[in-house]
Structure formats: C-alpha cells, structure tokens
C-alpha cells in the first residue's frame, strides 16, 4: 500500500505536468472537436443542437470544399514528389565528395530557418515584380505576367515555393541515410563490377528506404497542413482558386462562423492524412531491408 502511494507521487512528479498539458491541449480539444461536428453550433450562441452526421452530409454537397480538397490532394502529390526527387538528388551530389559540400548544405537548408509567412512574401515579390520584369526585358512570355494572377500558374507557384522550402530539409534526411550506408558494401559492389546506375538502383536506394519512409511521411504531413505559405503567397486567390484545405477550414470556422461544419471539414482532413500516411508508412516499411 505504501508502495502504491509512492508510485502515485512519483507519477505526479515526473509525468504529472506533461499528462495534464497533453490532455488539456491535445486530447480533450480533439475529442470535443469530434463532438462539435455533430452539432449545429455557430460559435456565438450558447446552445447547440445535436444534429447527427448532417454536417458531414452537407459537406459532400459543398463544391468549394470539394474543390479545395481535390486541389490539396493535387498540391500534396506534386509537392511530395518533387521535394523528394530534388532532395535525393541534392543529397546524392552532396555526399559524393565534391568541393565545398558543407557550404552548399548550409545554403540549401536556409529556407527552413524562416517561417512560411516571410517565405511567402519573399516569393510574392519575386513572382509579382522580379520575374515579370525579367520576362518583359528578354521577351519571355511565360514569366511576363505575374503567375499569381492566373489560377493555374498560381497553383504551380505554390508548388514551386513548397519544394524550394522543404527540399533542403529532406535533403538532410537523405544525407543522414547515405552517410549511414556501410562503405564496404559499396566497395564490394564496385569490385563485383556494378556500374553507377546499378549501384544506385540495386544497393543505395534499397538501403535508403528508411530515409524515404521518414522523408515522404514528413513532406506529406507538412504539405497537407500548409497554411502560412498559402496565406502569404496567394491568400487563396485569385478568386479562391488556390485555397488549400487548411485555409478553407480556417475561413469556414473563423470567418464564416460555421464552427460545426468547419470542424467536420477538419476531421475529414485528419482522417485523410491518417489514412494516407498509414498506407505510406506501411508500404515503405515493407520495402525496407536490413543492411
């Protein structure tokens, strides 16, 4: 009995604050949020009525949400693809012993030090002023007008800036993986007569699978949740054409005051992220091999 009391005291000393903070900041709001999706709460009135899954059904007919949701999927797909392609390429080049590789690593990582708001504003200036100026001077139609003024091009502007922002970070993950590959395996393959391409596809890529798992997971998560970059670069415009799901949820809840529906949309985002990242982690774990 005395032991049990000691255990309780120990728990409170070591884990009490963490447990309390974690429950009151993450778990309780999350569960309360799930409950809110089943009500018609508008954020102001004290009373809210239980309306079952009606919010979820109304979302299925909400074309702006469906647009924003599909756009986000497209955005996530291209961002994750290009982030990881470029990050791997850079990591490969920067572990091959070229001159000044440390300086390059430091430079390429720079965008990750800075918040999405500032990065968004920097690129807004580039897209609105610098590139059109260059385009008009050299007569290159593609960049003569601001990309942010056209829905199609504004989407790609968003992808470009995202890739620019995160590829340096993911590069670090691949560098960590590449450096961890035992050198004797590479040497053995060279002695066995493997060319550079065989070496990459048959040895390096399979051994690098854990890095891919982590990097794809992180880039998936981050691009699904992007908000500040979206806000600063395009504000969702022109005409809400680049409003990604995170910004859409924000406007629905805090600007349109539809808290129940906004929260239901957030829960749909959660379910989507959970399913996609679980599948991704499951598949890439299966592809991992022991060195």
């Amino acid at each position, binding site marked *: 009995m005395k032991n049990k009391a000691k255990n309780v005291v120990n728990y409170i000393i070591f884990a009490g604050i963490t447990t309390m903070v*974690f429950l009151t*900041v993450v778990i309780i709001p999350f569960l309360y949020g799930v409950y809110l999706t089943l009500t018609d709460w508008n954020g102001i009135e004290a009373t809210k009525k239980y309306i079952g899954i009606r919010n979820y059904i109304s979302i299925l007919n909400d074309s702006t949400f469906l647009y924003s949701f599909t756009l986000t999927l497209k955005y996530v797909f291209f961002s994750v693809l290009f982030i990881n392609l470029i990050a791997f390429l850079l990591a490969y080049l920067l572990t091959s012993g070229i001159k000044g590789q440390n300086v390059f690593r430091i430079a390429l990582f720079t965008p990750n030090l800075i918040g999405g708001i500032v990065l968004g504003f920097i690129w807004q*200036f580039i897209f609105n002023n610098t590139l059109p100026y260059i385009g008009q001077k050299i007569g290159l139609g593609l960049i003569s007008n601001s990309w942010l003024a056209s829905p199609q091009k504004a989407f790609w502007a968003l992808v470009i800036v995202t890739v620019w922002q995160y590829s340096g970070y993911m590069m*670090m993950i691949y560098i960590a993986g590449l450096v961890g590959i035992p050198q004797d395996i590479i040497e053995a393959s060279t002695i066995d007569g493997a060319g550079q391409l065989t070496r990459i596809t048959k040895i390096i890529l399979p051994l690098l699978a854990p890095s891919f798992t982590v990097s794809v997971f992180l880039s998936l998560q981050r691009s699904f949740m992007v908000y500040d970059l979206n806000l600063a670069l395009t504000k969702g415009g022109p005409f809400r054409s680049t409003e990604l799901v995170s910004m859409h949820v924000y406007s629905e809840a805090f600007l349109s005051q539809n808290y129940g529906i906004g929260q239901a949309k957030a829960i749909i985002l*959660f379910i989507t992220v959970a399913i996609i990242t679980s599948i991704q982690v499951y598949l890439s774990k299966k592809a991992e091999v022991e060195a």
Partner: protein
Amino acid sequence: MSKKVYKDYIKFFIVLLISLLYILPFIAVIINSFKTTNDIMANPLSLPTKFSVSNYIKAAEKMTYLRGFLNTLIITFFSIGGIVVFSAMTAYLFVRKKWKLNRLVFSLMIASMIIPFQAIMIPLVKIYGTLNLLNNMWTLIYMYWGFGAAFAVFMYHGFIKGIPYELEEAAYVEGATEFQTFWKVVFPLLKPVTTTIVILDGLWIWNDFLLPSLILISAEKRTLQLSTFYFYGTYTADYGLAMAALILTITPIIIVYLILQKNIINGILKGAIK
C-alpha cells in the same frame, strides 16, 4: 582519372546552380530593401543607387520590431524550456517504470502525432476562450508544451532506453532520490537529444504563425511573424519598406544559424534518423 575530375566539375556546377536558386530570392529582397519604392518599380534588379538604411529604421519603428522580437524570444524560451524539462522527466519515468498508466499515456502520445493542428484549433480556441485565457502569452506557452510533448517524449524515450541502469544504481546506493538521480545522472547524458529537440522546436515555435494568430489578439502581444504579417498587409504598396521588414524578421535566426550552423545541421541530422 581525368574522367572522374570532369564528372566532379559537372556535379559541382549542378549543385552551384541549384544553390543559387535557393539563395537568389533572399538576395533580391536584400538589394531592394535599400531602395525606394519608385526605384524598385522601375527596375527590381538594379543595385541601390545610394546606401540608405532609412527603410530599416522606419520599418522597425512601424512594426514595433523590438516588442515583437522580445515577445517571440520569451515565448520560444519558455516553451522550449518547459518541453525539455517535463518531457525528459516523463520519458524517464515511462522507460524505467512499466506501469499500465505509463504505457497508456505513451501510446496516446504516439497516436496523437498524426492529428493535424487544424483538427484541434477550433475547439482549442473555443475552450480557452470560454475560460477567458486567450490573448495571453502564457496560454500560448502552455499550448506549445502540449503540442511539443509527444515528439519530445518519443525522442527522449528512444534515447533513455539505451542508457544502462547501473549508472543510476550507484546514485541510489548513496541515498539519492529518483528526482535527484534523474537530474544529476541521467539528464546530462541526454544532451544530444536535448540539442536536437531545442533546435527543431526552436525553429517551429519561433516561426509559427497560425497558433499565435489564434491566441494573441492585441497588437502589443504579437510575435515577429504576426507583426510581419500585419505590417506587410498594411504597407504592401511601399515595397522598400516591406522588404526591409522581411529582412529584419529573418535576421535574428540567420545570425544564430551562422554562429551555430554546425550544431544545427548535426541536430537536424540526428533528428532525421530517429
């Protein structure tokens, strides 16, 4: 031999080209931050005709830069401090004592890591609003403890598992309590993980926008990210001023990066392997 050298040159130039693409946007902003709006409109590529820091002085004043900087510093410092202290102790308890409650809370934490912030923000604002706790820096710090806990406990947990128990036994023999043993014997050994957590959480909290924008309402409580956002919105037409504000916002973190780049890169690399 010469083929290898030739190949290395090509690699070098590819990397150089890509690195330039990563740096040029910053350089464009720096150059234009010294120019007048008219000069920028006329030619955003030209160098400043005369060196003048007046944009910076005016921007710093209008965006109450010092206030924003101090707010961000306080919030980041206490947030990281809390995350490190509480998460390290929690992870230690979870590794050393296999109680049911410990396993339950730990699994909840791991599971919670896939919840996007957007799925929590609306009820969070509602609950803390009802309790009248919004517009308070300490509420924000408290929330960072909550959002940072899972990852930090997870990182510490993985590392503490590898520390042999014999080290602590010696301390117990000498009559130290578990609390003392943890802080005197175990915590110093956790330095590599602590560094990684400080760097990753530091970058996250310093640069975070959405959470502070929901919690901090009054202008004098704004963080740097918030004041940049509002300032830029107000002075979009005055490019020179706006550019100076952007550079002011990123300067502190770039300075820290230049001083500590080796530690930062190593910390990130370690966090990447997990």
